[in-house]
């Protein structure tokens, strides 16, 4: 029983990381209709910068903020390149972000090399019931809960947030009432970059990061986001947590080698069921 609680908590911590990556995807997709393939790259960049800042002697908190800021900046740059040119279709933008993801590899290997990196997070072990869990997992969960609450408040109660929601629900109508849809797209990319960066900064102390860990992150993030049709942040949170828990439980009870398959098969099933229910998706995708 204490095993199970332990798996659940570590799973929730890992899943929170997926949920953050996924919600970044959602933030970008609902406004711009672009699936941002470089989303995992934001996490990797932020984590790598944080490790450098920490080893340069900066205190915790400052270094992590630096990482998240770099994620946001990278998000903005990706946004400018991917949707900055008028008339770029979402399909084209997907390929562009794919290219930018590979470009991030070049930059990461150039600056940080190709060896795995990590940095210490919250040390110590927390006792929950009769299970012992590294305290850092609880920190991830707490931060994620705060971030999602802030996002809900931001999208519902602030002007830029409501403008983003307006673009998401009807681009044309948003344009008519005077919202600059392209600028909102760039804002969405920046937000997505920050969320991706936060995921990287939070999970790196418990999972090492290399330049190509973005593939696992983006696939898991996408799997979490697809549950909510790439447009609902809260469903993404639920999806990410579910995914994290399933993976750790499977790994904990002996299927360690098949962790990734669980996420992937779940994602494929969800997509196929969704496609079967709604029929072929609109052709604007091309």
């Amino acid at each position, binding site marked *: 029983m204490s095993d199970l609680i332990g798996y659940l908590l570590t799973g929730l911590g890992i899943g929170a990381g997926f949920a953050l990556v996924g919600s970044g995807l959602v933030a970008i997709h609902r406004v711009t209709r672009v699936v941002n393939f470089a989303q995992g790259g934001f996490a990797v960049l932020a984590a790598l910068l944080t490790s450098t800042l920490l080893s340069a002697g900066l205190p915790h908190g400052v270094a992590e903020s630096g990482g998240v800021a770099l994620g946001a900046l990278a998000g903005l740059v990706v946004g400018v390149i991917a949707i900055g*040119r008028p008339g770029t279709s979402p399909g084209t933008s*997907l390929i562009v972000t794919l290219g930018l*993801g590979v470009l991030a*590899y070049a930059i990461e290997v150039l600056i940080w090399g190709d060896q795995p990196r990590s940095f210490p997070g919250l040390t110590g072990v927390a006792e929950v019931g009769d299970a012992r869990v590294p305290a850092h997992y609880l920190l991830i969960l707490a931060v994620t809960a705060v971030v999602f609450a802030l996002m809900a408040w931001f999208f519902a109660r602030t002007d830029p947030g409501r403008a983003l929601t307006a673009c998401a629900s009807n681009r044309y109508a948003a344009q008519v009432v005077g919202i600059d849809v392209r600028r909102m797209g760039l804002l969405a990319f920046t937000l997505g970059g920050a969320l991706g960066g936060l995921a990287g900064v939070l999970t790196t102390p418990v999972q090492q990061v290399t330049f190509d860990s973005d593939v696992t992150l983006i696939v898991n993030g996408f799997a979490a986001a697809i549950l909510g049709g790439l447009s609902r942040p809260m469903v993404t949170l639920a999806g990410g947590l579910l995914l994290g828990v399933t993976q750790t439980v499977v790994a904990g009870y002996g299927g360690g080698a098949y962790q990734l398959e669980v996420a992937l098969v779940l994602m494929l099933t969800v997509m196929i069921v969704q496609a079967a229910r709604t029929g072929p*998706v609109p052709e604007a995708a091309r």
Partner: protein
Amino acid sequence: MNRWTIGAVAAVTLALPPLLPERHLATFVLLLLAATVTVGVSLLMGYAGQVSLGQASFYAIGAYAAALPAVHGVPTLLGLALAPVAAAVAAVLLGAPLLRLRGHHLAFATLAVQLILLSLLAQADWAGGAIGLQGVPRLTIVGVELRDVGYAYTAWLVLAAALLIARNVVDSRPGRALRAAATSETAAAASGVAVGRHRLAVFTLSAAMAGLAGGVYAFYLGYLSPGSFPVLLSIEFVVMAVVGGLGTIAGPVVGATVIVLLVQLLNTLGTLPGMPDYAPSVLSYAVYAVLLIVCVLYLPRGLAPALRLRRTADPNA
């Protein structure tokens, strides 16, 4: 492209292998194989309008399907014949559920399939596991064991066959149906095109091409491991297809040639004395990325049409 250009390109590429030093011969063979896979990717993306980020999985299936029987003593030519069949069967089985998806959903689904395959291969002890499959025998055709130049000609034949098939498919009735479906699925379906069946057929065909190329690859290198087929390889095929020009016959060849030669050149530069050891990988990542982005944004029809190698058969016309 007129007959004379084709003839000239064919003559030059046929005369080339015996003249090349061993190092460049390897580049030549891998270039031809990459071009073969890219022909399939280009068919899929350009004519059927579907992005596959998992094409390297069919390359891998073909390679393993050819190598595994050969390691256990089955004649190598039979193994090579098995490669495209295995890839095609896998494509039918996977395509039936997956091709309900479109756009980015399909892109992620194919990526997921490749990740699953790599992970399963790494755990499959009967296929060498993560260490890989060693000692794949060399290809023997009518009692003659192929040497390096022989592989160059085999790869040449494979590419020529793929190009011929692609050309005939594009000009055929199903080819027109596919182009119609890529432009507007609803309109095509309303005109009586069996969209799903055509889409599965082209997916299978592109997989068979990748599988056959993979089979040659397995016998040429003599060693396979899951690490030989990274996700980046699938992305490379997409880059080659896009750079060369989607929906053209010459595009895949042009794209593969440009990318492979450029990467090879940068590799040579990157391994010069005095360069840091990460230089080759950084340079090649940068090349893929920059070429892909620039082509997609500023040269959406790719290099081949820009070079005026072929003016007709525009899928968007």
